[in-house]
């Protein structure tokens, strides 16, 4: 978690008020993102919207604390592997449909765990696909925004 001296370190990022509030609000944003992903089959949202919200929590941290802090706490190799893991999970769900029921991408959990309509445990493999997509989109967007922010104004500008 965040140390007291890192919060009061005024050299990078913004003022101490912004840093304190950001570290509290980040938890709420992640919770909201997970809610949107999990309830994707009942309310609007789903994998993509929830993934964007998860990525934006880390963007808030990046703006409030500076890039080096975020890079220390969330190494880029880990995020890149999480990204690939999300996509592989989605492909795995699709191929498991082929294995279990003979047709690609079929909703195979509908037979084994039917659930009740309008409850959380319903609609078979759709919540699992939402989780995989949310993971992938969150990781990808975080990587894109982090890497684009290393923009240097004047390097090797020779003609």
């Amino acid at each position, binding site marked *: 978690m965040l140390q007291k001296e890192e919060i009061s370190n005024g050299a990078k990022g913004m003022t101490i008020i912004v840093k304190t509030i950001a570290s509290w609000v980040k938890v709420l944003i992640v919770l909201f993102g997970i809610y949107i992903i999990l309830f994707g089959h009942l309310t609007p949202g789903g994998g993509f919207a929830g993934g964007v919200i998860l990525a934006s929590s880390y963007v808030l941290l990046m703006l409030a604390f500076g890039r080096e802090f975020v890079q220390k706490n969330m190494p880029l*190799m880990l995020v*890149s*592997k999480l990204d*690939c*893991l999300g*996509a*592989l999970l989605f*492909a795995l769900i*699709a*191929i498991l*449909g*082929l294995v279990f*029921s003979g*047709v*690609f*991408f*079929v*909703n195979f959990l509908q037979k084994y765990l039917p659930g009740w309509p309008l409850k959380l445990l319903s609609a078979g493999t759709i919540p699992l696909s939402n989780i995989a997509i949310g993971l992938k989109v969150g990781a990808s967007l975080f990587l894109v925004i982090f890497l684009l922010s290393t923009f240097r104004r004047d390097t090797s500008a020779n003609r």
Partner: protein
Amino acid sequence: MSIPLPLFIAIPLATAFLLPMFGRKGKTAATVLANLVTISLLVFAVASIGKTEVYEIGKWSIPLGINLVLDGLSSLLLLAISVVSAAAMLFSARYMEQYTAKAKYLSLFLLMVAGMNGVVLSGDIFNLFVFLEIASLASYALVGFGCEHEELEASFKYMVLGTIASVFILFAVALVYGNTGTLNMAYISEAIQYSGLNAGLDFALALFIVGFGLKAALVPFHAWLPDAHQSAPAPISAMLSGILIKTLGIYALARVVFNVFGVSVSIGWLLIILGLLSMVAGAFLAIGQWDLKRLMAYSSISQIGYVILGIGLGATLIARGDNLAWASLAILGGLFHLVNHAVYKSLLFLTSGSVEMSTGTRQLKQMGGLAEKLPLTRTTCTVASASIVGIPPFSGFWSKLILVIAAVQAGFYWIAAIIVFVSLCTLIMYLKVQRYVFLGELPENLQQAKENKGSMLVAMVFLACLCVLMGLLVLVPSLKEIILDPAVQVLTDGLKYSADVKGM
């Protein structure tokens, strides 16, 4: 052994996301895995020749769910995609050692192959758009892979024009959905047959022709092609020029115009005029070039003109209600030229990559006399040049002969004259390549140039053998019946596509 159709898309996609997990230490393992995937796709594509299938994804029946359709045209293009991608991946095992970040290159390459397989197999028009975008995005990133000055400029030009084309295509899909209420291609063609074309559908057809024409680099939409093909790494130029412009442009255009909307005389004449413009403009612009890959890029534009000319000629003949045998001969010439061009143009780009790796330059004026230093490259380049010019018994001769015969039989003598004239221009430009690269005298700084061994040679020799053997595809009747005739049949049947898909 035949595999379920979605695995053609799922295998390269899953492998593309598996490869970055290998990290920096597993570079050799990643290359071996990627090559295994492309070679196995080639085996599966050969095993699925001659089958037709409709695969419903998720067991949702057709108007509610997405389906994948494999018919004659799809299996021909699937074969072409797998051959060229297997050869290019084999070549890039050795060529891409000079770039960093090779694992990302392999991922993007496999994503592009997955996207192209999806375009060819899709039976739903929005699904076609999504896979088209996947393949296009992967190719924009691959063109600018080296991140040098020229590559970034070429990639930006390609990307802006390609994205505008994709937005046009999405707009056309929206118009089609608004007018017919369904997205499945079989159901759309049935609705259009029932109610006829209104103003919205005419506008959608115009937008489709512009969008797919820009992806296929027809003149006047060709402005991105010379820069993009010149600056990309050599195996990517081979893939782009060999199959990407054909799959995303010509296949999608033929599918939408012939099977969904139905041909008319004006559309056929539009395609003929675009084809003639491409042939002549590409040939004239190519003769004056001094950069090796830029010359080959312009000659790609010219050869794509041949394919569109064949298809447009067939469309005009079908729409006029003439003899169906003449129309299928014209379409046979166009499709056979498509497959031939995929093989020999990718071979030409691979040999140019080999020359560039040996000598370090692409300018024709700085090379010369490389015949003794690079003997195998010289042989394969000569085979490919003889094919593209149209010297018998190589494959290019047969496809051009079929196109000329089709034009003469239909009564368009002036089109046949233009075809022969552009072949002469192609001869001039490839004689220029041979003279400046391989004959002449060796400059001082290239005395140490030596042949590249290993996987690059295997890929080039494989494609060169195919160049020689492809002539047998039309000469041996049984091969022609299995591979080429079903593809021609799909296009000449036209609007019967909807009945075929629903019946399967």
